[in-house]
């Protein structure tokens, strides 16, 4: 009997110390890298994602349409749908990136055009309060930012190296500033090539820098992401997880975002088969989207009409061979491209020739990546087009029948400005 009591006490002690350990763990746990991903229905759905430095057991997002000081007062919460250990190698740790865990929480049933305050928690550690605004379903107007290529060349990506990511940080601060000045901006469409590659030593710092896009009052700008040729590694699917869009078909990451009831954006993936499932999907999706929307935008990473790289490169040839005829057939209003590292705007192009009825392609990656020298002499830039070496972010101001397209340089100066008429009829 004595032995049994002793054993019981021993087990109790073991349990207690384990619990203690867990509580201690929770106390030191940190949650970082707040971000919002928009996918198909941003008026009612958003993915809240973050990084925790410890594994934790429970990961939740608390949210409400009014701000709260206390976590207990939020009227809604959702458990994180996807959690896991981020792939971290020795070299990632050596670069200063800590081992960490990803969390992606799908908020469903949101109200359109509403401000949502939220905090995310891993066990007992919660983030400060942030907010984002859902897409407005029945609005004819919309402002969105577009930019791509935020990878940098510096080997040493430590934050204490002032040269590292300097321009990327500058562009992110500019985005936050623009968001304060123009609160009507709803999202940032990212044309991909986020970091040098999608390993943790690069992504960790990308997410750190991405926090600079958050406004002083805590507004997080939702991201509509695509996948680029520097985003092939597993870190991309771990940290830029879009629920079923990530897993669907061969390699996912192509989808239609209903920005409003009359404005749609189709995101395509140049890093998977362009002629396979994606082509079939696009062939069905484009006519549907065109018929239902006043404005139809497309975005993808590798350009059909490159400003920098060789026009005949096989990946670009493939975009022109498989996708562009579908864009033209379905009268896409504008195409957003990245990858080249320059600022560009083509003349309207139809059947590979300048044509006022054609599509304008803008881009081509300037969110911090070192800029290259483009070829303004190419036929699609002369007589109304533009190609220059400038860091930039695009602002698309969409109204009922017309769109104003503007490019802003790293100091916030307006570099380009042109109007666009909808091809809907």
């Amino acid at each position, binding site marked *: 009997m004595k032995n049994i009591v002793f054993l019981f006490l021993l087990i109790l002690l073991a349990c207690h110390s384990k619990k203690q350990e867990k509580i201690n763990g929770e106390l030191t746990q940190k949650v970082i890298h707040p971000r919002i991903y928009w996918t198909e229905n941003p008026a009612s759905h958003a993915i809240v994602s973050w990084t925790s430095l410890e594994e934790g057991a429970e990961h939740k997002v608390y949210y409400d349409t009014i701000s709260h000081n206390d976590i207990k007062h939020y009227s809604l919460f959702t458990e994180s749908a996807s959690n896991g250990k981020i792939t971290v190698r020795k070299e990632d740790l050596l670069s200063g990136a800590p081992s960490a865990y990803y969390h992606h929480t799908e908020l469903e049933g949101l109200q359109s055009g509403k401000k949502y305050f939220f905090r995310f928690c891993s066990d007992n550690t919660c983030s400060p309060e942030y907010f984002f605004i859902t897409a407005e379903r029945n609005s004819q107007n919309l402002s969105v930012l577009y930019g791509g290529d935020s990878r940098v060349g510096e080997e040493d990506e430590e934050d204490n190296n002032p040269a590292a990511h300097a321009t990327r940080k500058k562009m992110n601060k500019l985005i936050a500033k623009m968001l304060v000045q123009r609160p009507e901006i709803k999202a940032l469409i990212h044309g991909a*090539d986020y970091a040098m590659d999608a390993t943790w030593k690069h992504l960790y710092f990308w997410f750190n820098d991405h926090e600079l896009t958050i406004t002083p009052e805590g507004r997080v700008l939702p991201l509509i992401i695509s996948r680029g040729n520097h985003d092939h590694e597993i870190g991309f699917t771990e940290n830029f997880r879009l629920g079923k869009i990530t897993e669907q078909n*061969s390699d996912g990451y192509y989808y239609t975002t209903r920005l409003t009831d009359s404005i749609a954006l189709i995101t395509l993936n140049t890093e998977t*088969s362009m002629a396979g499932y994606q*082509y079939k999907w696009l062939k069905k999706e484009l006519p549907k989207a065109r018929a239902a929307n006043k404005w139809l935008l497309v975005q993808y990473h590798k350009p059909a009409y490159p400003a920098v790289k060789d026009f005949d490169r096989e990946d670009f*040839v*493939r975009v022109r061979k498989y996708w562009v005829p579908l864009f033209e057939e379905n009268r896409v209003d504008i195409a957003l491209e990245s990858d080249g590292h320059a600022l560009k705007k083509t003349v309207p192009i139809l059947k590979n020739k300048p044509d006022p009825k054609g599509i304008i392609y803008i881009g081509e990656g300037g969110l911090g990546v*070192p*800029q290259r020298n483009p070829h303004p002499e190419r036929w699609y830039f002369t007589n109304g087009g533009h190609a220059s070496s400038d860091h930039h972010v695009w602002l698309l101001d969409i109204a009922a029948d017309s769109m104003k397209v503007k490019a802003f340089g790293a100091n916030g100066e307006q570099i380009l400005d042109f109007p666009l008429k909808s091809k809907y009829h």
Partner: protein
Amino acid sequence: MKLTIPAIFKISLSFLILGIFLQLLKGAAISSLLLMHVGFSDIQSLYVEKVFAISFLVLGIFSVWRPSQLNLFSLSLLILFISLTSFFAGGKHFSELSVFAHFTRIVLPLAYLYYLRKQLAICVWLLRLGIAFTFATHGWEALQANPVFIDYLIGFFQLRIQEHTASYMLIMVGIVDIVVAFCIWKVSNLWAIYWVVFWGFLTASLRVYDAGLENFSEFLVRTPNFCAGLLLLAIVRVFFNKSEVKRNLKTS
């Protein structure tokens, strides 16, 4: 010109050198690395790459015209260096395997060197090594359903096949490539060499078929993939009977 073994060496080397030169001229991984990692301006990095391209071409012409140990060895090293730059620049499917995928082009100048030195066993060994690595790497990429390969297949059949059919075909292709990579070590398996010549030529041509004649440099840089097979076949036919080959290989 009669299609002798030195002639095949010279033609394939010339095609390879011209192909690499054209790719460097268009802008390749060297300028990208200089811009992104070293902090050169775009103009500087492209300039360095162009100077490198011209030097490479001069060395290449010299190596074909007046082959010597020094220039053929340097040529191999430079091609290895170029493959390493694609590895470091990344941004392409399986760029981490680029050195292995490029092995036939890396060993070709060396194989020519040992051919000229009449060390045929080493020459044969190098050619087989090149083929084995290149085919095994492509086989691996095919088994992993490299989307670029999928689009070659769908493009070849002009959108008449589905992506899943292309994926199944790639599994077959991958298995065959890997089997060939192993079989190439046995010269008695002549069919494996025939396959290398046929498949190497077909896949190199597919690049031009798929993306247009403007992409013929893509074909040119892949000439070693089938010419290595052609050379192996020619050397085996001209110089060896089977037992001799085996003996030679043992001593190498």
